[in-house]
């Protein structure tokens, strides 16, 4: 009896593997993807990367201008995140079960948040390009809208999780709505709120590179420019500096989190 069960399990596993391999082969055939060829070209690609994607002395002369762009990008991300977080907090207060004014505004704010969050940031950038053109403002708004949607959702959950008990107590003392928000919700939620904002700043620095390629601003523009002019040494330098900045911000925000929590 038991042996039959195990055998059946084995058969099912084998069948699953066969199907998976079959699907892979089929999709490779359909897209003209050649395994052998790609493996063969791998060393070549690696050697190209080794010779081209290195930072030369000549590339380093571009460092000041890269730094300028990088700083612009960092500040744009920070501004977009902080301003979006203020609006997100207001909407989250409306959308949270603990602090909602009534269920109509509650659902409304959840729907708004969901719509903004589910449109990818690249789509926002492309849509906004039509109205604002290639400027830093377009990048700002793209980051702002996506961040706003995400943070609203995160804040709603934070408020419901952490403050519902103290909210009940303060309401029972006869406190007004805004007293409850200022003295129970904000103090209880502030560590998580700050933590989410820091997380979003990190994320936005990463995505602003992509947004910058589309909107022609910041570090994304620099990346695009040197990439298209085939100056791969500088492209490498830019990539490395983005990585360094993102890691730096991550370390910094981890430190801040440790201190406030």
């Amino acid at each position, binding site marked *: 009896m038991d042996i039959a069960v195990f055998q059946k399990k084995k058969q099912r596993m084998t069948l699953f593997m066969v199907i998976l391999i079959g699907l892979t082969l089929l999709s490779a055939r359909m897209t003209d993807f050649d395994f052998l060829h790609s493996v063969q070209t791998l060393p070549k690609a690696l050697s190209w990367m080794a010779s081209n994607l290195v930072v030369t002395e000549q590339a380093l002369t571009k460092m000041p201008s890269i730094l300028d762009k990088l700083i612009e990008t960092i500040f744009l991300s920070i501004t977009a995140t902080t301003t979006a977080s203020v609006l997100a907090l207001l909407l989250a207060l409306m959308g949270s079960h603990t602090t909602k004014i009534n269920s109509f505004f509650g659902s409304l704010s959840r729907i708004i948040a969901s719509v903004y969050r589910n449109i990818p940031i690249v789509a926002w950038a492309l849509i906004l390009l039509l109205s604002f053109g290639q400027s830093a403002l377009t990048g700002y708004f793209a980051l702002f809208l996506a961040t706003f949607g995400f943070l609203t959702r995160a804040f709603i959950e934070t408020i419901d999780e952490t403050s519902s008990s103290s909210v*009940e107590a*303060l309401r029972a*003392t*006869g406190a007004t709505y805004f*007293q409850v928000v*200022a*003295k129970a919700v904000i103090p209880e939620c502030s*560590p998580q709120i700050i933590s989410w904002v820091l997380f979003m700043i990190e994320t936005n620095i990463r995505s602003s590179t992509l947004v910058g390629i589309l909107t022609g601003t910041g570090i994304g523009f620099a990346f695009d420019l040197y990439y298209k002019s085939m100056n791969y040494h500088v492209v490498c330098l830019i990539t490395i500096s983005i990585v360094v900045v993102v890691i730096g911000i991550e370390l910094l925000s981890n430190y801040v989190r440790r201190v406030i929590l």
Partner: protein
Amino acid sequence: MALLQVQNLSKRYDKEKRVLSDINLEVRKGEFVSIIGPSGAGKSTFLRCINRMIDTSEGEIHFDDVDVMALSKRELRKHRTKIGMIFQHYNLVSRLTVIENVLHGRFGYKSTWQGILGRFTEEEKLQAFNLLKKLGMEEHAYKRCDQLSGGQKQRVGIARALIQSPKLLLCDEPIASLDPNASKVIMDHLQTISKELDITCIVNLHQVDVAKKYSDRIIGLNSGRVVYDGTSTELTSSAIHTIYGSEAGELIME
């Protein structure tokens, strides 16, 4: 004249199931009343109907000669200042200090801005310290609440309720999360409050022996109905079994 009059009170969350049905009772000033009954009997709901944290479906509640059902938003706020509430999980703002939490009890008397900016008068601050002193919590006044033990947190909760200058204390299972030692401290404080300050206490309890020891009067709830209402000495073991709906000998009692 009774401080609290409840007439034909019913509460339903959905159409079929009634959480409370047809509750009639009066509570005098200074009385110490315990409500006992199995989980889900509607004890917590009943307490929250009194200060309208939960709206009732039918019936009338009169508190201090005021019709509680008819209150406007502003009047409701004033109504709530007269009723202190104590919770099983203390419900303090854990990231703020003890003294800040105690002063939260004054919000009902303040304008929104005074509350948000934390503008409290010298008298209010003195009163807060005096209350903490009475409850033996003076030395912890500047500690953050998440550093306190359960019994200490509950005493902060009591101070927050008392600074409202309430006429009634609603205690929702105040000792359910505490060890026997801390439970005794809390129950003793509640008894003192009711005796010395003449503040009415309505306490939800799970421990029958505690209820018998401390209260003037015990109300037994089962499935949203009052099945017992009398003094603690009259509470026989058969009455207890009616309240809990169990057979004799099936309950843990001291």
